[in-house]
């Protein structure tokens, strides 16, 4: 059982939740799906004095809505909802794909995109996908609301731009055009397992020429990153076999410091970055056509 005592709070609104964070101080953890926090608390790895559950907010912060050229997703939307969302499958397939291989059925029934991205495990699936999509993160704090782009949101190792008194309330992704193909290629030891490497590719083609290209990579370094320098080189060009090979090679070159882990050493991960970048590109291209 959990050893350390803690106070449990269950606010009914975002305002109330922010208020609590301001009052309770630093030794406070937000609880959403609990699929990361609860195991950590069960093991005694983390022992906050206060736990603020956001689960009373599920009715207001769980949604997938088309809004203009974007899809607005409530932070408490579960992986299961995202994986099975018709809107995402039609308009942002890569996000539904990523959500569908997180953990297992039970984990996906409870875990949320807000909780997951705020936790920012380096081997998680949403970060490289959000980077490739230029996703936006809306934060609510004592001084009001602000929006942060993915690039600025994922700051460092398990660190996001969320300030201690802020709550992530929404994630926005673009509605992808019909000429845009997207794919998430994940190398994992078991189905639903953490990504050894995870490559997100979003590519827009017009008249066989590349209009836009975005590649997000996890497993190639201590934190996920975009292949920004390479991406612009292919605008207006054909993405033939040579190009895809070159892109995969560029990904390999960019993955200079993968971390060694139990199931995969750095050299292996680097090779896999190349392999799975190629796969993601091919899958995204197929989807684009």
């Amino acid at each position, binding site marked *: *059982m*959990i*050893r*350390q*005592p*803690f*106070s*449990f709070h*269950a606010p009914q609104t975002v305002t109330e939740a922010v208020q609590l964070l301001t009052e309770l101080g630093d030794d406070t953890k937000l*609880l959403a*799906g*609990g*699929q990361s926090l*609860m*195991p950590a608390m*069960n*093991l005694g790895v983390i022992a906050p004095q206060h*736990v603020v*559950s956001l*689960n*009373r907010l599920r009715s207001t912060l769980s949604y997938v809505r088309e809004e203009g050229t974007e899809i607005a997703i409530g932070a408490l939307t579960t992986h*299961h909802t995202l994986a099975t969302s018709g809107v995402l499958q039609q308009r942002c397939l890569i996000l539904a794909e990523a959500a569908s291989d997180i*953990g*297992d*059925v*039970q*984990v996906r*029934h*409870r875990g949320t995109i807000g909780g997951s991205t705020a936790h920012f495990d380096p081997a998680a699936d949403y970060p490289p996908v959000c980077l490739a999509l230029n996703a936006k993160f809306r934060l609510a704090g004592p001084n009001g609301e602000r929006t942060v782009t993915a690039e600025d949101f994922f700051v460092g190792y398990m660190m996001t731009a969320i300030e201690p008194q802020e709550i992530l309330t929404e994630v926005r992704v673009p509605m992808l055009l019909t000429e845009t193909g997207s794919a998430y290629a994940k190398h994992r030891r078991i*189905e*639903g397992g953490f990504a050894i490497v995870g490559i997100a590719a979003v590519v827009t083609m017009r008249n066989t020429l590349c209009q836009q290209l975005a590649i997000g990579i996890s497993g190639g370094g201590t934190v996920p990153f975009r292949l920004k320098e390479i991406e612009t080189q292919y605008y207006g060009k054909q993405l033939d076999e040579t190009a895809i090979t070159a892109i995969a090679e560029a990904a390999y070159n960019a993955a200079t410091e993968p971390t060694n882990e139990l199931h995969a050493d750095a050299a292996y991960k680097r090779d896999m970055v190349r392999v799975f970048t190629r796969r993601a590109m091919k899958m995204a291209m197929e989807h684009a056509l």
Partner: protein
Amino acid sequence: MKTTVHLTVNGTQRDAEIDTRMLLVDFLRDRLNLTGTHVGCLTGNCGACTVIMDGLTVKACTILTADTEGSKVMTIEGLTPQTGGLHPLQQAFVEYHALQCGYCTPGMLLSAYQLLQEHPNPDESTIRHGIAGNLCRCTGYQNIIKAIQAVAAQRNEERKA
């Protein structure tokens, strides 16, 4: 710290004063004596603690009892018919030798139950995917899959009749 919670378990309203630290799995086992739900890993991996909460399978070791206010929970005891006998899935598990030590079985049955609700006609791949959150150390899963396939087939027959 103590707090009160009101939830429904297997159709019965339960109001309780609990420690904030109490996990749902511990509440079910220690307070309500519903010991069919098991504790395996406490890290949300093994699925031995699987219950159905508000219509969806979840791992009860990852849920604080304090966070179940107003929820409806079904445990394995809720799957067993109150009038006696076994649920078809339980019966099939017996017939197809889909359990040995039985530790994963309650969780496995609830996942199978949920799976068949969503996929009445699952192929093997779908079944494996559907029980991926329940680890079994004994059986190698083959007979579990057969048992689930048998129930699905039986229900198909009944639908056609």
